[in-house]
């Protein structure tokens, strides 16, 4: 996989961009003149740029994290599959209406295990983005996911999902064909699986469109990913009557991996390379692979009922774990 030579800089990364530009110019001079002094200067600047990047990324606010989570150079579903899945066979269609490339899926081998892999693909180039509808699925995407999960259950393959969507597609056609029902059924299918399921929020975890393929035994988030009930822009336009206050909404809604770990909504955070996953994709993907492997290992030994019970317990506990009350309070159902 080609490395990103010149990452697209985000607005808040301007100081880094300026330093990088200076380094480039100096490098060009050094090549011409061959002067040693220039090279020392470049090394100094390089160190300065790295330090600035580290400082900047150490304390990203929720809105900046949202921008990183949406960065076009961030690893996408196809990158994860290329790097992590062997013998990959992509599968298409929901067998009901059509094929939706906003959610891709297939089967293959992940570090020795047979798996079904599912995830949103946003695409990078304009034609790709259009083909994948920017990662916003229609009902067919969710119904394809259900079909592949059925197959995983039938043949005993583990399910891995990579979540990266702004949300389900808000279109007339999607509504006409039962977007809500499709999402509900996909969520239900995740929860009833008798095989291990591990989900990673790799970029944006946008509302129902995300949870539909993320109701897993083990849910992980990349360090700079976000997961929320509504996009910051959407929340801002409702709460403040202005999409411009997305930053405030992002902060108020507590959408970062660090927040969600605190709430007990996710099971772990996968650290990203310095300056975000888009700056060293291969490293980020490997870290994701390692975390997924570890999660699958932890689920070993659970049979189908055990896996369903673990999943039920995991989700029933969310929210209750924030109270002092034991989780069995109020006569609520136990997992099983």
């Amino acid at each position, binding site marked *: 996989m080609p490395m990103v030579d010149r990452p697209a800089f985000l607005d808040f990364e301007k100081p880094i961009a300026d330093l990088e530009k200076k380094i480039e110019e100096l490098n060009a001079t050094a090549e011409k003149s061959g002067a040693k002094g220039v090279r020392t200067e470049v090394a100094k600047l390089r160190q300065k740029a790295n330090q600035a990047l580290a400082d900047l990324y150490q304390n990203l606010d929720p809105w900046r994290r949202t921008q990183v989570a949406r960065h076009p150079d961030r690893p996408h579903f196809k990158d994860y599959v290329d790097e992590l899945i062997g013998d990959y066979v992509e599968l298409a269609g929901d067998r009901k209406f059509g094929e939706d490339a906003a959610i891709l899926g297939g089967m293959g081998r992940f570090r020795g295990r047979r798996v079904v892999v599912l995830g949103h693909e946003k695409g990078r180039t304009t034609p790709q983005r259009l083909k994948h509808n920017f990662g916003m699925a229609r009902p067919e995407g969710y119904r394809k996911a259900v079909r592949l999960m059925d197959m995983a259950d039938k043949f005993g393959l583990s399910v891995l999902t990579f979540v990266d969507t702004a949300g389900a597609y808000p279109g007339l056609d999607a509504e006409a064909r039962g*977007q809500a029902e499709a999402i509900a*059924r996909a*969520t239900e299918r995740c929860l009833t699986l008798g095989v291990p399921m591990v989900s990673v929020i790799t970029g944006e975890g946008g509302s129902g469109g995300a*949870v539909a393929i993320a109701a897993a035994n083990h849910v992980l988030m990349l360090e700079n990913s976000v997961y929320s*009930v509504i996009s910051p822009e959407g929340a801002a336009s409702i709460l403040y009557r202005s999409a411009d206050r997305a930053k405030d*909404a992002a902060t108020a809604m507590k959408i970062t991996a660090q927040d969600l770990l605190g709430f007990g909504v996710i099971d772990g955070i996968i650290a990203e390379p310095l300056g975000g996953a888009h700056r060293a994709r291969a490293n980020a993907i490997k870290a994701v692979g390692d975390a997924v492997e570890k999660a699958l290992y932890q689920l070993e030994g659970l049979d189908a009922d055990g896996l369903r019970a673990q999943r039920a317990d995991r989700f029933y506990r969310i929210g209750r774990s924030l109270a002092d009350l034991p989780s069995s309070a109020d006569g609520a159902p136990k997992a099983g």
Partner: protein
Amino acid sequence: MNSWIDRLRPGINKLLQKRETPDNLWVKDPDSGEMLYRVDLENSQWVTPSGRHMRIGPELRFRYLFDGESWLAIDTPKVVEDPLKFKDDKRYVDRLKEARAKTGRDDAMAIGYGKIGGSHAVALVQDFNFMGGSLGMAAGEAFIKAAQEALDRKCPLICFTAAGGARMQEGILSLMQMPRTTLAIDQLRRAGLPYIVVLTDPTTGGVTASYAMLGDIHIAEPGALIGFAGQRVIEQTIRQKLPPGFQRSEYLLEHGMVDIVVDRRELKATLARVIGLLKA
């Protein structure tokens, strides 16, 4: 996600709030603007002469539903309040306080147990008047509890949905109510107990995309707004006007998402028949 719907028809909400005042003998018809005699409306279960099904709360739902207008009210579980310490123009805790004062209930869900045409059932009603019926931790726990009551009593669960969607003020914890309520429905399925959804105006967002669309039977009241995405968002996305009747009950019936559209005054008889047929 309640406020955009609140803005759609603020008049109705105001009317429903005021309905306890004795001097409010007349109610304005939201369609024709005519004044309707309150007693007539009450006798027609808040269906206007033109057939509009006005929004009603849990008390009336239970009254219209259960035999002898009698039921056992079941408490809804307490949850951790305001885990996000959420604040926009107003603090979430203050919004909760206001909603509680306005409705006299803790949160958006009410649970009742009684007989419908002689068969026992647990009913769960979402109150749109409480922050737009929004699905938060309290509503999610209430749903789970209602399912457990149905399991314990070996009877069907009927859920009357009415909500703008998930409660933004609880962030990701509100989104998590989608899988949580889905789990409870799965428990009913495995126990062989019917889960019936009655979709009322409005049912949108995360509520539609979870427990509102997972029933064995989907019944909708006429003219109810039912959908996933908001209409304004859809119009902005596709840059065209939406067809008349889009996302209404009749549209969903035509598109295969609901089984029956039933007049409120026929609802109890329909539910009784359905339950009678499903129970072993």
